[in-house]
């Protein structure tokens, strides 16, 4: 009988993963830190044309780009003279399972089917579960979704309970766990037991699936406005949607578009804490994933993460839970689009940006998602109140306090953002590398890789290494 203790299963991780994703990561590794990212993406992923074909087979993608005309009128009304950029939103909620995650699941499930796997497994508490379940249904594969769903008192996060319902509606088995990073451990147990394919969020298949999103945005924006977007604002968590969208934009030729990440600020809440689990009312798109995954992408379930946000991110903006609830109401009431919460994190940031950008600029928010029971602001705020949160109207920038107080703006002009310094994130990346690989000495190749991986200069990386007490090996 297999030893199912935590340590024994984790020790079998590499062999389980190799069989379950079928990628030989060793081929791309140059050292423990350095690897050939572009080669991995080219050889393992599928071409943009092939991905479009795969997605067409299951009705994924080709969603509408919508100009938010009423919201844009509102922005012009309250912005200083000459300011007030136009916002467009990519209505990804119209994908089969209701979010852009169908793109991310489509290639993995296609690949699993092509290689004769009987089923797919994904560890996810978000829309990705429904997407994998829906794609698996379309391709006749079995599906298991493993979620982190409850605290130790069996109080479930409403949004995650809704995702479970959705997965079951597509015929998937849903395994619901209590709080803890051991979701990964148990996913390994399930992969080993079933021999199913690991539809990881972080393989080149997953990211190749998202590239069509960036590609469509570039083409549609040009058709509608005569130019590529000046900025695309992207809700950031694990880094996959940002990486894929940015790569797709570049492939379409939109090389000057600014890539702006946005996350809900949940500073102070510990992601693996049983007590903190139900003190947050966003289950993704928040700093609890956004910062760790940006600064150390290889914390994911695969040896080398294909989602590497710092390669593409030009700015990183934080918004509060209250602001996102407010723009969710705004989108429903002014545009007749009941969506969210996920894409509305970037919409909140986009609104604040639009107020300060020139009125001839174009901002694209790259996703919406389906909403309903468990996901609506009313569902989340009712739950928040039950968990003892204070909810009030006020100034979100000044009064927001994650885990204690949710502040809904009193006026749209109060929608703002907190800018996260990109230099600090890049320095944290170097710090994480030093910690994770127990490294203090860096070769020229390693410096060059880190510069590429964080989209900065080698001189900057050298500076960070020295500031953090490391050394350079001149060879």
């Amino acid at each position, binding site marked *: 009988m297999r030893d199912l203790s935590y340590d024994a299963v984790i020790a079998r991780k590499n062999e389980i993963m190799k069989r379950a994703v079928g990628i030989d990561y060793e081929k791309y590794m140059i050292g423990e830190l350095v690897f050939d990212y572009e080669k991995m993406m080219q050889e393992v992923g599928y071409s943009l044309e092939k991905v479009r074909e795969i997605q067409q087979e299951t009705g994924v993608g080709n969603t509408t780009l919508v100009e938010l005309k009423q919201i844009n009128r509102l922005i012009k009304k309250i912005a200083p003279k000459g300011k007030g950029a136009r916002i467009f939103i990519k209505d990804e909620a119209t994908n089969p399972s209701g979010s852009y995650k169908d793109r991310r699941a489509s290639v993995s499930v296609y690949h699993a089917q092509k290689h004769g796997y009987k089923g797919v497994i994904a560890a996810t508490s978000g829309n990705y579960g429904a997407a994998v379940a829906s794609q698996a249904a379309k391709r006749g594969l079995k599906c298991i979704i493993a979620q982190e769903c409850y605290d130790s008192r069996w109080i479930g996060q409403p949004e995650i309970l809704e995702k479970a319902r959705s997965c079951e509606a597509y015929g998937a088995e849903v395994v619901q766990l209590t709080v803890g990073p051991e979701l990964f451990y148990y996913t390994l147990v399930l992969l080993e037991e079933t021999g199913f394919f690991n539809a990881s969020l972080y393989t080149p298949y997953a990211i190749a699936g998202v590239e069509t999103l960036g590609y469509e945005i570039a083409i549609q924006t040009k058709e509608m406005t005569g130019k590529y977007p000046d900025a695309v604002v992207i809700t950031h968590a694990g880094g996959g949607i940002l990486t894929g969208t940015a790569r797709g934009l570049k492939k379409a030729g939109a090389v000057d578009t600014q890539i702006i990440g946005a996350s809900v600020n949940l500073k102070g809440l510990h992601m*693996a804490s049983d007590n903190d689990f139900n003190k947050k009312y966003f289950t993704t798109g928040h700093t609890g994933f956004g910062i760790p995954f940006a600064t150390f992408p290889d914390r994911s379930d695969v040896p080398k993460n294909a989602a590497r946000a710092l390669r593409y991110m030009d700015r990183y903006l934080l918004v509060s839970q209250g602001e996102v609830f407010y723009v969710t109401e705004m989108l429903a009431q002014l545009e007749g689009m009941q969506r969210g919460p996920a894409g509305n994190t970037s919409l909140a940031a986009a609104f604040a940006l639009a107020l300060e950008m020139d009125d001839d600029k174009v901002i694209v928010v790259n996703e919406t998602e389906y909403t309903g029971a468990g996901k609506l602001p009313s*569902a989340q705020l009712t739950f928040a109140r039950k968990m003892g949160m204070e909810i009030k109207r006020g100034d979100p920038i000044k009064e927001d306090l994650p885990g204690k107080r949710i502040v809904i703006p009193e006026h749209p002009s109060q929608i703002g953002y907190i800018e996260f310094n990109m230099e600090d994130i890049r320095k944290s990346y170097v710090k994480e590398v030093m910690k994770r690989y127990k490294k203090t000495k860096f070769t020229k190749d390693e410096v060059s890789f880190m510069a590429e991986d964080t989209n900065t200069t080698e001189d900057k990386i050298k500076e960070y290494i020295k500031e953090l007490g490391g050394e350079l090996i001149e060879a």
Partner: protein
Amino acid sequence: MIAKKGDWVQIQKTLLKPEERTAPLPEDTKKVPLQMRVKGFLINETAQIGDEVEIETLIGRRVSGKLVSINPKYDHDFGEPVPELITIGIELRKILEGDSDA
């Protein structure tokens, strides 16, 4: 209430006891077990809440654990009307209509 063979039920199982949780964890999480809930069709002839049972899941996998619910209901909902939210639409429309004091 008694569940019969073939009924749609939910079971619960402890995957790791607190002392078996050797992953790096915050103190509060370390004190509690890692538990799982999963749904499926009851394989036992009959069972009561709290019994150790076996189920077959939607994809045909067999799992055993303690019976916690018979015909489990989805109980997440749309929430209650939230006073802090319900006036937002009216306020925004006023601004659009030109009443800038709104």
